[in-house]
């Protein structure tokens, strides 16, 4: 769409005459465009308690905004903490992996002497590495 193209809006004379600021009028119409189609002028003319309704909705909006804000904040904190712990666990897992490599070499030298502890440690490390890989896949 060319930005040089001109766009005109034809405003009925009577409306233009009773509107002091046409720029403001068009600004508002564009701003509220998604709601314009919902306006029933006949219904609007009959409406009397708009101010009261407005106060109520404003209060409701204020209240829900507060709840929403607090929850978003809580989510931010929990998400940060969980993320930090997850990263820490992953890093520790990597270090453990390196340690396992050393142990692997040790096992090949020392053989059966290490068997019991070595196997349970290996099982546990496999469990955690699978678990973190799975979590990583979920996140992707």
């Amino acid at each position, binding site marked *: *769409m060319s*930005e040089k193209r001109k*766009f*005109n*809006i*034809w*405003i*009925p*004379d*009577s*409306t233009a005459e009773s*509107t002091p600021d*046409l*720029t403001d009028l068009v600004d*508002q*119409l*564009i*701003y*509220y*465009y*998604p*709601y*314009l*189609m*919902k*306006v029933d*002028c006949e219904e*609007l*003319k009959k*409406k009397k308690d*708009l*101010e009261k*309704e407005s106060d109520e*909705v404003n209060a409701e*909006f204020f209240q*829900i905004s507060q709840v*929403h804000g607090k*929850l*978003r904040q*809580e*989510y931010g904190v*929990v*998400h940060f903490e*969980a993320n930090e*712990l*997850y990263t*820490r*666990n992953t890093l*520790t*897992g990597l*270090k*453990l992996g390196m340690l*396992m490599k*050393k*142990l692997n070499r*040790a096992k090949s030298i020392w053989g059966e002497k*290490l068997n019991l*502890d070595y196997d349970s*440690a290996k099982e*546990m490390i496999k469990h955690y590495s699978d678990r973190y890989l799975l979590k990583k896949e979920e996140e992707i």
Partner: protein
Amino acid sequence: MSFSKKKKYVKYELSYKQKQKLFKLANQNDSNPDKIVNQIEEFLDRFSEYDEEDLWEKLLSFLHLKMLEDKINQKSDDIIETKKKINQEKKFLGEYEEDYLTIVELNRALDSLNKV
């Protein structure tokens, strides 16, 4: 648009800023700028049939209300979604804490094994 022959119209040319907003609106609503301009003109045409004083003020209040109601609905949906996410993160946090403690234990065990 099909203009009423009985009525007179004033031509208003959109400013650069208003055109930008128009393009943005067209994108957001999966529409095109010409269609939006037409809809606005049609609305103005309907609106001009009512020559009641303060109707413009009423209209602005009404539109503002509709927008607020929409925002309230969006926020309510987001609140439900955020609550779900918080619970999930708390669950993860619990699991990670448990993992962390086990990993620390494991690290100690491996460390002592390494020293054998």
